[in-house]
């Protein structure tokens, strides 16, 4: 039985390391197929209606309990690492950090209920905030990734000074204070909780953990305690990261057990086993305390919170003046409603965007859409014509897959030209930087005066990539800028130039 722990550790690392590296990779060298590791996360699979994955995860949980929490969920493994570090710094002879603790039922079930009810009522804000995978994505992309880039850039700077260009400088992740704060807050909560109390976060706050806990109460295999062999020494409880082994009463709270298998090797009496639940007449499954009153309180609380939340959302989305302009969603988002309700702000597309034009939103989508990606153009930063990475890695289906040819005609916004700000108008000098960068020539130059040319936009072939805005020299208010589409539509294909077929035999001079 002791091998189970090793299997768990190996499995966890096999999931965790590629995910971390994939999020941190700023060179684009790791294969994009790795995103499939993220499609098998619970919330993304549910949101993208990936029935096969949902079924597999469901069966897995029904068979073995919370395997997802122990190995597949990156935030879970992150907590194990943090918890291990916590134990490392603890003095040996001090009292063990772990011991049986009562479940925080009211808290965890309330959070779960509110999240579910809110989602059904049409607000995915809590799912966005509490999905463990997305929380991990935010922490990695907002905290660890910038750190890795800093180190890389420092080394690249030193090396390039010596004429070595093996490493190159990478544009630092743009700092969005609100998105950073959310990520940092969760980092602190998760780190502190796991540092001192193991999987406390999983068993108290995480709605995925709580719901899988319900499943693992009836899972086919579970950790069981042999009453006759156990002498209540408590060795197992000291190893339990979930603090769910009550050795005095010889009971294990299955709903909080994350299948870490640490307890298996701790028992000198071999009283703890991972085994078939229904093999014989078991001591009847714990009867729950009469819950009617609690349930009533919980439900009414949940409903009230939901109504309050839904109203804030309305309030904010009606207040357009908060937005400087309509936000620009990544290609494949199809429409604002679909996008906002399916995106969990995991930051995967943000970290994979080679142009770094995708950034976590502050309040562009309202308060419920903090950290959902939007396009923010700045010098040399715009949506690349020949790229569809964001839509191909999105695990939640918020961005639907767009083949490259389709992406090239997906209009995410439309360029608007303000002549009064254009340098051709103000300085009476040639420029044309916008048209130069326009991949479809929706922005093209037409005769102005004195041999000068000035831009003009053909809106139905514009796809809103923002190349024109990114390069427009009129600052701080560009003469050409993109207004996002609330519903992404198909743009017309640009017409091709007339072919030149005559043969040229002379130099012309």
């Amino acid at each position: 039985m002791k091998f189970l722990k090793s299997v768990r550790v190996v499995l966890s690392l096999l999931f965790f390391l590629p995910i971390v590296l994939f999020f941190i990779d700023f060179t684009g060298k790791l294969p994009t197929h790795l995103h499939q590791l993220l499609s098998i996360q619970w919330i993304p699979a549910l949101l993208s209606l990936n029935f096969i994955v949902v079924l597999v995860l469901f069966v897995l949980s029904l068979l073995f309990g919370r395997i997802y929490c122990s190995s597949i969920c990156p935030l879970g493994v992150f907590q194990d690492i943090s918890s291990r570090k916590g134990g490392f710094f603890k003095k040996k002879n001090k009292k063990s950090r772990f011991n049986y603790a009562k479940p925080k039922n009211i808290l965890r079930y309330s959070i779960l209920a509110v999240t579910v009810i809110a989602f059904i009522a049409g607000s995915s804000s809590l799912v966005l905030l509490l999905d463990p995978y997305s929380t991990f994505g935010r922490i990695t992309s907002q905290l660890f990734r910038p750190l890795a880039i800093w180190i890389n850039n420092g080394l690249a700077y030193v090396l390039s000074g010596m004429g070595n260009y093996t490493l190159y400088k990478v544009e630092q992740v743009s700092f969005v204070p609100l998105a950073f704060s959310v990520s940092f807050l969760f980092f602190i909560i998760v780190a502190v909780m796991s540092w001192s109390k193991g999987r406390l976060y999983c068993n108290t706050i995480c709605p995925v953990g709580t719901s899988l806990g319900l499943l693992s109460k009836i899972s086919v295999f579970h950790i069981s305690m042999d009453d006759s062999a156990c002498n209540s020494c408590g060795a197992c409880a000291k190893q339990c990261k979930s603090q769910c082994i009550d050795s005095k009463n010889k009971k294990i709270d299955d709903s909080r057990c994350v299948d870490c298998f640490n307890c298996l090797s701790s028992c000198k009496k071999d009283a703890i086993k991972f085994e078939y639940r229904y093999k014989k007449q078991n001591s009847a499954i714990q009867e729950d305390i009469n819950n009617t009153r609690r349930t009533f309180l919980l439900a009414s609380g949940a409903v009230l919170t939901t109504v309050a939340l839904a109203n804030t959302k309305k309030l904010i989305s009606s207040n357009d003046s908060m937005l400087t302009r309509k936000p620009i969603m990544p290609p494949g988002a199809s429409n604002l409603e679909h996008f906002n309700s399916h995106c969990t702000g995991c930051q995967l597309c943000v970290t994979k965007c080679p142009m770094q034009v995708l950034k976590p939103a502050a309040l562009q989508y309202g308060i419920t859409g903090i950290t959902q990606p939007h396009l923010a153009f700045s010098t040399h930063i715009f949506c690349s014509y020949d790229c569809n990475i964001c839509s191909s890695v999105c695990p939640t289906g918020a961005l639907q897959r767009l083949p490259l040819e389709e992406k090239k005609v997906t209009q995410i916004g439309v360029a608007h030209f303000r002549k009064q700000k254009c340098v051709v108008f103000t300085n009476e000098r040639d420029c044309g930087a916008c048209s130069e960068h326009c991949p479809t020539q929706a922005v093209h130059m037409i005769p102005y005066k004195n041999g000068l040319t000035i831009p003009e936009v053909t809106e139905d072939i514009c796809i809103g990539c923002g190349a024109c805005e990114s390069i427009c020299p009129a600052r701080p208010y560009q003469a050409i800028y993109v207004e996002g589409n609330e519903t992404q539509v198909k743009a017309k294909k640009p017409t091709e130039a007339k072919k030149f077929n005559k043969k040229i035999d002379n130099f012309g001079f």
Partner: protein
Amino acid sequence: MKRRDFFKSAAIVGIASIFKTNALASAVADKKLAVHSEPDLVAVMGGQPAVMLNRALKELGGISHYVKKGQRVVIKPNIGWDKTPELAANTNPELIGTLVKLCKSAGASEVIVFDHTCQDWKKCYTNSGIEKAVIAAGGKMVPANDESYYREVELPHAVSLKKAKIHQALLDCDVWFNVPVLKHHGGAKNSISMKNLMGIVWDRGYFHNHDLHQCIADAATFHKRPALNIVDAYRIMKSNGPQGKSTSDVVMLKSLIVSPDFVAADTASMKLFSQVQPTDIKDVRHISLAEKLKVGTQNLEKLKVKRIKL
């Protein structure tokens, strides 16, 4: 010794008639054989990029005339766009690869290639085919995507662009070649050798804000001139430049124009270009502005021009 002189002259005329070069003929006429009278501009038509480059360099005294043993060489193509070679948005990779190889064979200690691209630099380097060609030829691709690679220099003869941040690889090299592709350009009207200089500079935004053409001409006053401007006109982009939309914008001219003189190279290129897409060279204002700054001459009549058809 009249007889000896006679034989000498006869031999020289004989050789000259084989090469059919005006330079040699006139050298004979002047009764002196000047080895260093290379043409000011060489134009080649009708071959593959590598063949035309070799031929043009032969006229100019060979690569060893420009690259000495142990020197550090920089080649600056146009790699501005994430486009394949067929679309003529970037300099022909075969041409760049051949030039790298030639520099290496002349004993260059290092051949560095870079461009400050307009799109994602890694994709531009890869999809232009230039990275592959350079590495295969023993050269080195260097990033130019960050301000820290650039150092500020003064341009005392400039009108508008008095200072510019130029890539350190170029500042530190011994000799460099400017290898643009001949293209239509929405903003600058045409992109040839002087326009290509925007890729050695960090802050291009300044150009667009402070009279694009003047700034381009100003950049050409940078004291460290390229040894040669090698204008790739194997495929040219006649319309929708500088990116182009499709191969309909591309015309196969199989030509190459080489000159150490920015203005002459651009003037000749414009004349070639105008046969496909009639363009008034006056509208490409940076050419005449550069001439005003004494960067070079538009008067091709005054120059020793060598035209070669293969």
